[in-house]
């Protein structure tokens, strides 16, 4: 593929990703020395999924100039999509095992009813909500993981771009979208278990005999492959004339219109494509996280996504990946109780509380001193090397 021969950053990125994946594998518990624990393998795999979401964010914001503050909604929808299948299949297996002890084998209807009761009793329901209709089919669930975020992005984008909503108004509208979705999901009677969300997602149906050590590394691999493929595809997309046009839209959309391009179609294309990418990222993320609830798609999550891309450097694909990886790993470190608190006499710095302050400070510093983000620093070093 010519994208490899022409684009140096793609080769370097894929090279690093492959080395990283191999490195984690040989240090994993399942296939290597065990230096990396199962839970940390999951953290790394989830980080790759966040990098994928950041890549999408960079396409829509960094390249096309649409500051969407709602893309995490698509991420969450992907998670709910896979979560419904995981929970259904897993719960059904448990129910079957429990009922197997009886004298008369249970009918399919009884199994289905018992499974529904098991899943929905926390919200006081016992029937399958309509939106779970596809949850007993992995294939249909995978289709929905692409179709639901894609459709939401398509409809939302069509309405917004057609009326030429741009800039801060669009950002606010996307925040409203993710807030509305999150509030909707918080309700107990919407069919997705309200604030309980979906849980036990780390248990993969049909793989009960396989330990989490192996499952964690498999998901890590899948996340790495997804990120690698998306990176190459994104690099290919922006190296085409399409890439020139969306950058043109970012810098002067009116000019692009007067050249005869329907700016709305281009924006809609990018918005929908990146919505789908986020959906896929979410579908890979939540089986590693094990649980999803409506809090995940609170407005702040989408803002974080934008912050990662800004810190990493928008308008360059590796910038987005670097930003997401660095910031989300640091966030895990500081908020996961790994960072030692600092005692200052009567005062005590507890990182869980201070991390947002640190992040905000980092954001300001990067904006002031490295406007092109951390990715821009990479350019700087590489250029120096060459000179």
């Amino acid at each position, binding site marked *: 593929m010519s994208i490899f021969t022409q684009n140096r950053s793609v080769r370097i990125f894929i090279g690093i990703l492959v080395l990283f994946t191999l490195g984690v594998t040989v240090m994993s518990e399942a296939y290597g020395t065990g230096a990396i624990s199962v839970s940390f393998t999951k953290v790394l795999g989830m980080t790759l999924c966040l990098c994928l979401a950041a890549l999408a964010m960079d396409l829509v914001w960094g390249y096309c100039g649409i500051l969407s503050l709602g893309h995490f909604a698509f991420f969450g929808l992907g998670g709910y999509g896979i979560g419904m299948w995981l929970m259904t299949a897993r719960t059904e297996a448990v129910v079957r095992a429990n009922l197997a002890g009886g004298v008369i084998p249970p009918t399919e209807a009884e199994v289905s009813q018992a499974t529904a009761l098991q899943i929905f009793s926390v919200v006081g329901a016992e029937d399958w909500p309509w939106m779970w209709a596809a949850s007993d089919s992995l294939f249909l669930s995978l289709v929905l993981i692409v179709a639901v975020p894609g459709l939401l992005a398509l409809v939302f984008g069509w309405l917004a771009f057609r009326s030429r909503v741009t800039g801060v108004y669009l950002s606010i509208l996307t925040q409203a979208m993710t807030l509305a979705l999150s509030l909707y999901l918080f309700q107990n009677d919407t069919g997705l278990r309200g604030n309980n969300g979906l849980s036990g997602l780390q248990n993969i149906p049909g793989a009960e005999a396989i330990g989490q050590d192996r499952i964690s590394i498999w998901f890590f691999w899948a996340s790495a492959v997804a990120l690698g493929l998306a990176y190459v595809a994104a690099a290919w*997309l922006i190296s*085409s*004339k*399409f890439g*020139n*046009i969306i*950058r*043109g839209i970012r*810098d*002067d959309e*009116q*000019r*692009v*219109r*007067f*050249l*005869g*391009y*329907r*700016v709305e*179609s*281009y924006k809609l*294309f990018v918005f929908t494509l990146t919505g789908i990418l986020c959906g896929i990222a979410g579908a890979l993320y939540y089986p590693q996280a094990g649980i999803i609830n409506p809090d995940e798609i609170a407005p702040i999550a989408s803002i974080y996504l934008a912050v990662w891309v800004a810190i990493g450097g928008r308008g360059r694909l590796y910038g987005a990946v670097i930003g997401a990886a660095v910031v989300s790993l640091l966030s895990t470190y500081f908020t996961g109780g790994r960072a030692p608190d600092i005692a200052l006499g009567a005062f005590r710095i507890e990182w869980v509380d201070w991390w947002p302050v640190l992040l905000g400070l980092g954001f300001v510093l990067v904006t002031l001193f490295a406007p092109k983000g951390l990715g821009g620093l990479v350019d700087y070093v590489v250029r120096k090397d060459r000179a």
Partner: protein
Amino acid sequence: MSSLLEVQGVSVTFDGFRAINNLSFQIGMPEMRAVIGPNGAGKTTFMDIVTGKTRPDTGSVRWGDLGHSLLSMSEAQIAQAGIGRKFQRPTVFEDQSVQDNLRVALKKPRGPIAAILDRTTDTDRARISEIAGEIGLADHLSTRAGILSHGQKQWLEIGMLLAQDPKLLLVDEPAAGMTTEEREHTTALLKRLAETHAVVVVEHDMEFVRRLDCRVTVLHEGAVLAEGSLEHVMADGRVVDVYLGR
């Protein structure tokens, strides 16, 4: 000579201020037309109306033999129909190379999928270097447009207009920021284009207009004040008043 663009009785009001007042204008193909008038006369607004950027309150704008109304078309549709525009302030994609600017402008299918699958053919390449030669940027194909001089940006935008290959070219103050030689080159280029296209040029510089040697429309306070040869309109007492003081 049938009419290519026909503007009739158009008026535009901005917050109560009437920028275009019952303006009528007509141009056929091929033809060169100079539009002159003091600052604020409504020249740029006129172009905004034709290209769909500003919608008039009243009047009609008709295009081509069939007399399609441009008022119900989007900017992109109008551009696709064959109206190209060079802005008063040069607007090129500063972040992209000269070559990419021309490539985006090149007359080819405008849809997203077509753009993704677009490959620069030998014909495209030849056309791009031909245009680059014409606008004096042959040695700057891979230069980022943002670091070009003001005059070079003007040229690049003219090049983008050429690449679009429209039927009607609306050229707003092309000579601003250009040296005398460059101005002469521009006039020559515009005159050559006018042999096969309809060209409307807005310009302040009388010397430039004189060299264009074409019919002149004088705008004042959003309406046509006079129309005819440059000698004819300059002999009109009202035109002299407008230009030399009130």
